[in-house]
């Protein structure tokens, strides 16, 4: 067996977090703690890049698989492996964690050691979720993510942090409990059909599940994921959590945590229960489209920048769910791409809002204005990230949105027409905010604001570079995704009832007739 690279990816941040105990949580150690954890996070990122370099993009199989028995009597094993979809999400996690740590250097001074440990442990749990090929293991990591996030919001958040963190926890737990029941149900079903318990995802993929059971299992999984996404109408925890979370929390929450929901749909809910997924796809798409429009409209009227970005996430994630529901190549590839995009652009927006709020200690749009005169570099970065968020071609957002719309149009043009209004609305709310914050005359309160500091340059440059790279060379990222998406679609098609297959789910050009 080769080097257990996935395990080391999970363990590395944990070791780093534990090593922090060596440094006493005192003020004079603060910088040392911050530097050490940043180094750990960068090392993790380097390993994720190494992983990508070693990854065989042409293959649809799970790679770097490690399989060890854990609790054999229940068929629980330590089973990890990745395909193209999880690969890129892991790289995204590796990319955003150092940024989250670095962006808190000047804003978090309370219990710095605990803060850094929480972020690193959260990273471990997130990577754990993406590498798990065993449902039990997945669930362990899934719930493990909640704890550091809960503390990040609850301890280092803003004024209403207790309310927000509790709301976040309860909402997510409510979904997870049902999912746990469904997971246990699946293992039990494996026992009744195959004679032994199993939580092995690959074994369960090939398990024939009666359609009526699929129905309930799918609902349980989908609810947990829908809350996490969050899909309309399960989204109301998100604005509160974002607004109260520290910048690092918002970056990770928007950048990675929200993708857990959509990742779950792609990895578990759809391929495990193809018949139910095919049946429910239009309903999911409907909620997604409602979310796209609803999120955008509500974002438009927010007085608080962070809330505005949070609601825009509801809209953007609606696109992702819509893409998954199309169950065709372009739609699902676009959805996976959009997951990455959203991590970059919304992560970037939260960074910017954090920088402004570090300077002025307010996030109210009306408190700003005319910043272009005082902080031109910050505003230039703000502009590029805004454009990435509204899907300007040449930047990352466009590629995902366009592929999703393409897939949707081929599947159900009505959904595509409704979703495409998001193109207008996103420009409206983003540019309106941009105008109110950056244009116009500058008030006395903002006149002395400093422009970007070196540390802030270091945060924004990678984000912007990636936004441009993903917009100009999308194939670099689409290539590893493609085989995995095809495999997942194939799984769904094989398991779906025949009549659903015939309804033209693939983009088959009908040229010349």
């Amino acid at each position: 067996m080769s080097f257990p690279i996935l395990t080391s990816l999970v363990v590395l941040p944990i070791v780093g977090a534990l090593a922090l105990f060596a440094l006493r949580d005192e003020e004079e150690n603060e910088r040392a703690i911050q530097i050490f954890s940043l180094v750990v996070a960068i090392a993790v990122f380097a390993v994720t890049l190494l992983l990508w370099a070693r990854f065989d993009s042409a293959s649809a199989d799970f790679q770097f698989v490690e399989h060890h028995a854990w609790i054999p009597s229940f068929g629980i094993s330590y089973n990890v492996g990745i395909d193209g979809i999880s690969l890129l999400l892991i790289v995204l996690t590796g990319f955003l964690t150092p940024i989250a740590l670095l962006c808190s250097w000047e804003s978090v001074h309370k219990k710095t050691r605990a803060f850094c440990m929480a972020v690193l442990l959260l990273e471990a749990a997130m990577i754990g979720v993406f590498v798990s090929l065993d449902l039990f293991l997945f669930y362990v990591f899934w719930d493990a993510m909640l704890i550091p996030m809960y503390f990040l919001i609850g301890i280092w958040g803003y004024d209403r942090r207790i309310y927000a963190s509790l709301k976040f926890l309860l909402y997510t737990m409510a979904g997870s409990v049902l999912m746990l029941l469904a997971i246990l149900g699946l293992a039990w079903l494996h026992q009744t059909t195959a004679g032994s318990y199993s939580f092995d995802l690959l074994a369960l993929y090939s398990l024939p599940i009666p359609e009526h059971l699929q129905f309930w299992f799918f609902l349980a999984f989908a609810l947990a994921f829908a809350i996490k996404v969050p899909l309309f109408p399960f989204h109301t925890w998100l604005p509160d959590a974002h607004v109260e979370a520290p910048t690092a929390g918002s970056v990770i929450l928007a950048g990675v945590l929200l993708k857990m929901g959509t990742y779950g749909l792609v990895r578990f809910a759809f391929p495990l229960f193809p018949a139910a997924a095919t049946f429910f796809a239009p309903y999911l798409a409907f909620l997604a489209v409602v979310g796209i429009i609803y999120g955008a409209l509500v974002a438009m009227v927010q007085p608080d920048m962070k809330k505005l970005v949070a609601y825009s996430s509801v809209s953007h994630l609606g696109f992702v769910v819509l893409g998954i529901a199309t169950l065709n190549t372009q739609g699902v590839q676009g959805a996976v791409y959009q997951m990455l995009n959203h991590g970059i652009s919304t992560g970037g927006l939260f960074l910017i809002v954090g920088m402004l709020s570090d300077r002025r200690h307010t996030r109210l749009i009306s408190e700003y204005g005319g910043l272009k005169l005082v902080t031109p570099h910050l505003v230039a970065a703000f502009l590029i990230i805004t454009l990435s968020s509204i899907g300007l071609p040449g930047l990352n957002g466009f590629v995902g949105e366009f592929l999703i719309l393409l897939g949707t149009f081929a599947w159900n043009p009505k959904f595509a027409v409704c979703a495409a209004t998001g193109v207008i609305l996103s420009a409206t709310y983003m540019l309106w905010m941009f105008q109110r914050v950056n244009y116009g005359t500058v008030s006395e309160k903002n006149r002395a604001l400093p422009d970007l500091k070196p540390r802030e340059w270091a945060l924004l440059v990678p984000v912007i570079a990636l936004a441009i790279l993903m917009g100009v060379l999308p194939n670099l990222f689409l290539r590893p995704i493609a085989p995995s998406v095809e495999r997942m679609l194939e799984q769904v098609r094989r398991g779906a009832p025949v009549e659903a297959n015939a309804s033209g789910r693939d983009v088959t050009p009908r040229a010349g007739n």
Partner: protein
Amino acid sequence: MLLLIPLLPFFGFLVNASFGRRLTKSASGSVACAVMLAAFGVAALSVWQLLGMDAHNRAIEQHVFDWIVAGDFRAPLTLRLDPLSSLMILVITGIGSLIHIYSTAYMHEEIDSEYARYFSYLNLFASFMLVLVLGANFLVMFVGWEGVGLCSYLLIGFYYQKKSASDAGKKAFIVNRVGDFGFILGVLLLFVRFGSVDFQEIARHAAGLSPEVAFGTLSLATLLLFVGATGKSAQIPLYIWLPDAMEGPTPVSALIHAATMVTAGVYMIGRNAVLFSHAPETLQVIAVVGVVTAFMAGTIGLVQNDIKRVLAYSTVSQLGYMFLAMGVGAYTAGIFHLYTHAFFKALMFLGSGAVIHALAGEQDIRRMGGLKSELPVTYWTFLIGALAIAGVPLLSGFFSKDEILYRTYASGHTWLWVLGVATSLLTAIYMFRLVFLTFHGTRATADVVAAAQHGHDGGHGHDDAHGHDAHGHHLHDAPKPMAFALIVLAVGSILAGYVGVPQVIGGSNRIEQFLEPSFTVSERAGADIAGLDAVREHQSEESGPELMLMAVSSLIALSGIGIAFFFFQKNPSASDSVATQFAGLRTLLSNKYYVDELYDATIIQPIKIVSEEGLWKAVDAKVIDGSVNGVAESVGSLSELLRRLQTGSVRAYAASLFLGVVLTLGYYLWR
């Protein structure tokens, strides 16, 4: 080599955007102009190369790399130069260079960093515009399409401290996004139908079909694309952003909002001529929208008092002509007008810029007059532009506009022709109203001084430094770089039409022969295209009507100038009495038919109110969070109940533990 054409201005953008703050004005201006001139050189060489090829298969293609590939969807970054795009790149780089040169003087009052910022945007614009016209498929075109929209947004809002400027920029972007909504859906529909987004492939597929008799997929797709065109090219119902776009610096209005970007919609239709020819229903819509826009904008132009706004409505109106041409299948005529219009409208905008520059930011023509003697270069060049746009014989506008009107008439659209001719009367009137009020008559100096102050108060962006001009006794005519651009464009406005002199008066209409292959698939398949054939037949039939129509248009142009002369030069009191007589109409026109107000009341305000009061404060806060809290509360009371079970008594716990064990064991024993 093709890639170099957009890359050169992009390089200029990078330089000015990254180091602009540290560069002197002359350095950043020189870089910007140099890259444009270099791009013009490369463009000219490429076109030269193109001209050397077989007349029916003139095309140079460059595949750069595969941009987006997903399943059977493929959007390569491919550039393609054919007769149509070659004309466009010459206009963009040629007139673009002139406007860059003009700008070096016009923007000279800005501080270094703002100057560099201006040129970086202008270069970026040119780069995207070149991508737009060189793109070989819809997606690459869309990169340019959105990119120029972005630059337009940035440049309209260049004086960002001014609320009206940033409002106008935002409005332009959002209205264009409404158009893009249609554009994207059109592209999606075409892909689903034909399996490609490549212009040539789509044309090839379309050519194999017979034109749609009833409204079908092609009609829908082309109509959606046309929605995109109405946004970018400011046609009904999305024209409302263009007049506001005049908030930007005047050279920007000349380049982006007259000569190049706003013609993108016309270009897009020309680029897909074969496709549009197969959707006669859509063509009908385009022709009607075009001519109605032309007429309506003309009427508004009659009563505007801001020199740039008159020109803006005139641009909307002239774009309407181009769409009329496209709609009646006269693609060459439309593109020909696009090309001549680029000269004379850029010229007039730059001329108005010279006036504004001399008058320290004054834009109200009621406060002007008598500038003829003080600004001779500006006056004479502006006059040439006005004569050209009015359609006075032997100037460029005459040939192109006449071609459109003739083709409209020849294709049997008599009513559209009547409206078109009426518009051409309006054009002559409002243009010469502008000429007479600005340059003739007398100027009250006090007024101008007051205006200069007004300029300061209103924060006319770029006025601070040249306040002294207005206080001085005589005004400065255009400085050298500006005069240079004006003169070159004036010469162009006279001569540009001679590539398209119709056969009927002894010309050879070379531009038609040159462009024709771009509107057909290839020489053989192209013969099937009904729309073009019909036009071609008409054209060869008889020369009588064509000559007569030509005489009618010339007469109309001259009488329009005469009317303007009577009302605004010879007898100003007559215009006042007409204005009072038709006060209601005048108010309607000055308020631009209240279209902005209508949109605000029926679309913008309802959306804001519903989103804020309905969705956010009611649905989100009350309905969803309300029910979540409801669940939480019931869970709370349930736990309250459960809490009572936890009495703290060890005996009670022991008893329940025992009970549990018994029940579990019992289940396993008796099952």
